[in-house]
């Protein structure tokens, strides 16, 4: 279970990628904005004033260090000359707190705006970026790259959800039959693959996730255990102490409950759209799921089918990465290359564990093999944690 909503986390960045001309980053200034070259500016945002330390800066990476000296939450915007299009912004600056805004801006006329209280047009001033030696690249086709990434990812999520619904339906029929447990067991990990590929999306519905994917140890006092892992334990009770198998009536109840929740999930997913930062954050989030649940063998405690989930999380992360890769290649080609090779290295290790039916079971893996997988997850996760900021830069 993951409580920090990945969808919400994505919104915090709220980058205007679609309207990109200049670019933003909330990283502290390192390279281009050193003091003395005119690109390091300060902004004092009070309740009734917005004082920018200079009204112009040379083209390149400009940093605004925004301090809120007012009494309510403020925001700072760098707008295009029309005063409408957002070039870069930083939100949620509490009173007496400072936040940097770094933007890569070409020469031209702009408007700065502080928005104390987050309402209205804000307190505006003209701002000029002058010609300089620094070359600021403006990508002409970025908008189409963004649109393609968004559309492709939404289609992928919908497709996985559809397959999840179909296979969950087949699985619960086998499970309810009572005399088809071998077939149910054979389908269990395969059906869950579609959940795990879109796990960060699926579990963003805080009401459904605990009903569908809770592990026994995650339960709150008084919370009734339902969902996949309850059925898992009933099909693979070997590690359970004094386990009492579910009655046919209970089987039917919990199976129907899972299918009903899967239908609800599928209907909600049809309406979802995704921004590129959500896609990139989702890719990172899926690798976190691997690191905390799959590589440790905790997710599928009873069936030991953790590697199916592992592969599915990696599949979903790779799809997310591939979707934003054309953008990333414009912004940070080195990171794109590094991530590509890290994904490949991890996949080689996973492929080595494949069998005719899928994968070896977790308890068949040696400690060295688990450590090797874990190392590869770490090697991929570190650069992957920089993906969102890079595609938004």
């Amino acid at each position, binding site marked *: 279970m*993951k*409580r*920090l909503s990945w969808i*919400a*986390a994505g*919104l*915090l*960045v*709220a980058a205007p990628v679609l309207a990109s001309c200049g670019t933003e980053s*909330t990283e*502290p200034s390192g390279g281009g904005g050193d003091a003395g070259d005119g690109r390091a500016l300060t902004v004092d945002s009070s309740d009734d004033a917005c004082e920018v330390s200079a009204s112009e800066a040379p083209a390149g990476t400009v940093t605004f*260090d925004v301090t*809120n000296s007012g009494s*309510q*939450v403020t*925001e700072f915007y760098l707008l295009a000359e029309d005063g409408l299009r957002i070039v870069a912004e930083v*939100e*949620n600056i*509490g*009173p*007496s*707190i*400072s*936040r*940097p805004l770094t933007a890569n801006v070409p020469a031209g006329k702009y408007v700065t705006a502080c928005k104390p209280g*987050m309402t209205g047009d804000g307190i505006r001033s003209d701002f000029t970026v002058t010609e300089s030696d620094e070359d600021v690249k403006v990508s002409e086709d970025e908008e189409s790259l963004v649109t393609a990434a968004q559309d492709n990812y939404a289609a992928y999520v919908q497709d996985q959800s559809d397959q999840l619904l179909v296979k969950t339906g087949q699985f619960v029929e086998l499970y309810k039959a009572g005399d088809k447990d071998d077939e149910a067991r054979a389908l269990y990990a395969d059906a869950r693959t579609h959940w795990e590929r879109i796990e960060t999306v699926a579990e963003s519905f805080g009401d459904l996730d605990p009903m569908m994917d809770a592990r026994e*140890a*995650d*339960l*709150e*006092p008084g*919370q009734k255990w339902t969902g996949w892992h309850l059925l898992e334990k009933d099909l693979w009770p070997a590690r359970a102490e004094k386990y009492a198998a579910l009655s046919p009536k209970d089987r039917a109840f919990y199976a129907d409950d899972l299918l009903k929740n899967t239908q609800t999930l599928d209907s909600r997913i049809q309406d979802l759209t995704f921004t590129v930062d959500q896609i990139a954050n989702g890719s*990172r989030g899926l690798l*976190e799921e691997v*690191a*905390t649940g799959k*590589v*440790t063998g905790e997710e599928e405690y009873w069936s030991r089918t953790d590697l199916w989930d592992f592969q599915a999380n990696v599949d979903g992360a790779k799809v997310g990465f591939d979707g934003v890769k054309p953008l990333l290649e414009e912004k940070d080609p080195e990171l794109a290359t590094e991530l590509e090779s890290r994904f490949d290295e991890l996949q080689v290790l996973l492929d080595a564990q494949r069998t005719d039916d899928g994968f070896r079971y977790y308890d068949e893996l040696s*400690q060295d093999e*688990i*450590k090797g997988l*874990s*190392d590869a997850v*770490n090697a991929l*996760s*570190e650069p*992957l*944690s920089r993906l*969102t*900021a890079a595609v938004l830069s």
Partner: protein
Amino acid sequence: MAPRVSRRGLLGGGVAAAGVAGAFATGRATADAPAAMTPAAARAASYAFRGEHQAGIVTPAQDRLHFAALDVVTDSREELVELLQAWTVAAERMTKGQAAGEIGPVEGSLDLPPDDTGEAIGLPASGLTITFGFGPGLFRDAEGRDRFGLADRQPEALQTLPHFPADNLDPTRSYGDLCIQACADDPQIAVHAVRNLVRIGFGTVSVRWSQLGFGRTSSTSTSQDTARNLFGFKDGTANVKAEEDAALADHVWVGGDDDANGAWLAGGSYLVARRLNMTIEVWDRQPLGDQENIVGRTKGTGAPLSGGEEFSEPDFAMPGRGGPIIPADAHVRIVHPDQHGGARMLRRGYNFVDGSDSLGGLNAGLFFIAYVRDPRTGFIPIQNAMAKNDALMEYLKTTGSALFAIPPGAKPGEYVGQSLFA
């Protein structure tokens, strides 16, 4: 930009923090109590073992911890009392900077093992405090049988803590009939204390588990800087502090009428110990803005996201873009006293690193210690809320848990815990 953390500032603060011995200290420490002590002087501080309350609770949190939980292996109430008497003598000696035994590490017969193990030779008291506690198992065994004629004195509040969501308890790191909390500014001194007390107890008690803490994460006095946990954030900013007499009476010290069975515990407290493993590697990959939203404070100064400085009260209603500026699942909001009928705790936790796990990840986190007047109101509801709603839980796994009743301080001539056996 937010003011950056100054490493020098932190170090300086640590030294100044140790200089508050004044009110609590005796002897050498009183002579050494200026506002800015040198590190050597700080280590020389000593705290009286005897008093109205046990030392090691409101004592300005020392830098190091060795905590041990023990099971009683004798059936004899007399032997148990004799051990508490022997522990009292040894603890009082060691907190003065003396050897554990009367003879000393190298002063005795060449034909006998020394009555002090020797690793503290030449070291000062180092602010050592030793705090003893009683677990539920001292009163009744697992089958509910009265072990030492104490069952009718078991406070209602002293029960094994309930299972909390995301608890993944290791029984070999949980529970215990007795506890010893040894805190000092020198780790060698804290370990020396536990080692010698355990040695005195062989045959009567058996160590169940023990935990080293290498750095304090809480301040228990307004004169101390707030320390950082391994998430890199200041921890325990809103702690109950030694200077808050009224808050201590309300939230930390057990009252004489609190519990029909527990009059003996008046002036004592309850110690909640929780071993919280952090998923360090995953946390480290979270963007700074996400980290701050999870905690609800800035990482640099520790100010709440609603503004101000570290000790500014959070404004939970202040709107931000996309919800309150302090998110609904931010740690500071979930555990804030306002959400729990004003309940506060005195936290005294320590960072720990027990090497690395089999996958090369740090086996590390926070050894959480809290002193509360009643765990049923002062801890359990807050822990449940945290387990249910706190964004921080994503990065925590509880691997150890224990609850102890901490008897009041030993008065002159008494042994620790005497009121329980009187």
